């Protein structure tokens, strides 16, 4: 789960990680009020969406007067931002963050992420702040500093000294500031079950202090149950409505651009099914994992979600039943044909637990449009053919 910049900064503030003062608003008038309250003389008007690259997309602008705050708020609020991290359709800006301008001496980069190879969090830093960090890593990898921190010992003084020296910070007061900053950031990373925190840029002010000018945070979805404050920050308007609807039924759904709707159990087999369709000259319309507890209701819901997509010309149901029992899937398919108008060919391949019972159920139901696939290859080939002929 991701949160907005203003929310990340609320968490930063709670842990004493310095940020400029700011106020989140949802209207132009409120933006001006917020600017008055902050006092100025310079403000930054920032679009709040769950994607990076907002500045380049025109979603972050500097205002030097209250009139300018009004103009910019009016311009940015309601605009659709397209950045390198959004899809081509972009994201609608519904919230703004009005922030005090900062006295910027230098722009640095600081993040905390999980290093899957080392199996521990990693502090990543660079003197090249304010730029796309992937480009820095690609072009000048020597400018990326990485410091793994074993959670069993936590953030120690030596981690901090290594960070300060690697960033070329020689002033003792500045060294203390950056070490404390990183220490607090690591603490909040661990305590909130964060998956990633990224501050780009981290600025050094004229006074030698460090400020988080931006803040991105993502969290481990598996830990949200024990992080009620974090969970409350979830903004459903930033997420795909179909994916949310699917998740309510234990389905994992991702929309794609193709023509063949897929309903599969297990993420790996679902991706493998998409690959097979693609290899045979077809195009998958979606990824849909029905999970381990699929029943008639969830399967019917899956059909409904797949069929909402007008591009779908055939549906391929590919189930290898382990925990999932094929007879339940078969009943779900029959259920789906009763409650939704399944107007495209459905290719069904059911194998594994209770597959013979499932075949019997489907045979007796006599559903038009239903084609049986003998195995993965056969089912995929029939689906591709059906989509072409439809």
């Amino acid at each position, binding site marked *: 789960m991701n949160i907005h910049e203003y929310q990340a900064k609320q968490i930063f503030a709670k842990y004493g990680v310095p940020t400029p003062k700011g106020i989140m608003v949802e209207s132009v008038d409120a933006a001006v009020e917020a600017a008055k309250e902050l006092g100025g003389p310079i403000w930054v008007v920032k679009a709040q969406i769950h994607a990076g690259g907002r500045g380049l997309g025109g979603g972050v602008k500097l205002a030097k007067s209250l009139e300018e705050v009004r103009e910019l708020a009016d311009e940015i609020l309601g605009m659709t931002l397209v950045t390198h991290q959004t899809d081509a359709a972009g994201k609608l800006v519904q919230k703004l963050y009005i922030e005090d301008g900062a006295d910027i001496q230098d722009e640095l980069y600081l993040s905390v992420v999980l290093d899957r190879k080392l199996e521990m969090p990693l502090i990543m830093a660079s003197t090249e702040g304010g730029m796309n960090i992937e480009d820095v890593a690609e072009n000048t990898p020597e400018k990326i500093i990485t410091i793994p921190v074993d959670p069993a010992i936590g953030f120690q003084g030596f981690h901090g000294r290594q960070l300060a020296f690697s960033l070329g910070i020689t002033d003792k007061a500045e060294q203390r500031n950056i070490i404390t900053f990183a220490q607090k950031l690591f603490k909040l990373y661990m305590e909130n079950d964060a998956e990633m925190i990224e501050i780009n840029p981290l600025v050094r002010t004229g006074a030698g202090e460090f400020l988080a000018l931006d803040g991105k945070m993502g969290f481990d979805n598996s830990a949200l149950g024990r992080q009620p404050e974090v969970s409350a920050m979830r903004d459903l308007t930033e997420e795909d409505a179909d994916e949310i609807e699917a998740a309510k039924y234990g389905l994992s759904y991702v929309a794609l651009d193709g023509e063949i709707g897929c309903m599969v159990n297990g*993420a790996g087999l679902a991706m493998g099914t998409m690959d097979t369709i693609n290899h045979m000259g077809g195009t998958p319309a979606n990824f849909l994992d029905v999970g381990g507890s699929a029943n008639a209701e969830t399967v019917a819901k899956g059909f409904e979600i797949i069929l909402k997509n007008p591009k779908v010309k055939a549906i391929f149901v590919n189930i290898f039943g382990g925990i999932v029992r094929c007879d339940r899937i078969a009943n779900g398919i029959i259920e789906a044909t009763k409650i939704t108008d399944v107007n495209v060919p459905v290719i069904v391949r059911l194998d594994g*637990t209770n597959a013979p019972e499932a075949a019997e159920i489907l045979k007796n139901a006599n559903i038009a449009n239903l084609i049986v696939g003998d195995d993965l290859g056969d089912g995929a080939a029939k689906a591709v053919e059906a989509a072409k002929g439809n």
Partner: protein
Amino acid sequence: MSILVNKDSKVIVQGFTGKEGTFHSEQCIAYGTNIVGGVTPNKGGQLHLDKPVFNTVAEAVATTGATVSMIFVPPAFVGDAVMEAAEAGIELAVIITEGAPVKDMQMAKAHATKHGMKTLGPNCPGVITAEECKIGIMPGMIFKKGNVGLISKSGTLTYEGANQVCNEGYGITTAIGIGGDPIIGLSYKEILPMFEADPDTKAIVMIGEIGGDLEIQAAKLIKEQITKPVVAFIAGQTAPKGKTMGHAGAIVSGSAGTAKEKMEALEAAGVTVVVSPADIGKAIAKVLG
């Protein structure tokens, strides 16, 4: 022969009396797994599925001599359960539970390593030595005894791969699902050498996914250490960038961890890479002649 587990392995179940634990323990016992007891706090002294229940893993190990634990506790308690097993002297913990917090798994795996305990999973189907011992949730009937070792990140692709191998007239020595979470226990680099050393395993099926670089490490290891033929499939060639496809492991960012990169690395290491999982069985038939 086989790897990791066989008909003599003494197995306990943590989370024995829960709904999932009960259902799958029953299936494992029916398959022939030597389940010697289970652990559920405050239910010690009872009998469940005709096996003794203990309050702690230490007690279970002391009484039964178990060396393997199958873990079904709820996600929030997985880290705790793994660390308890490690301190009690369990040699292999097979963690089936899905949704364990990543932070807990970092701590738990480090602790397991410190105590010399191997782990498998979490969020995996487990391990099965065909017609001897099943520790996990896979449908046992598709795993016929034979001479192909199978290792996979994905549960259902484990079944798909094993089924195809058996339909071609071959069979399985041991099949292992390693799971696709960010932090996992045993992986390709530990398991491939076990298959290499197992005299009954004549060929290996390796199934990977987009995200991370475990398959790239595996390719390097295969080139240097594995002489047996390997057939590989990498799921997610058509997955769009930046989207999570169910497994936390299946995240592509930038160029690292793409299916293409992994397939090329494996091919360069002499592996037979198939573009569709539907071709796994045929590829095995080809390499085994």
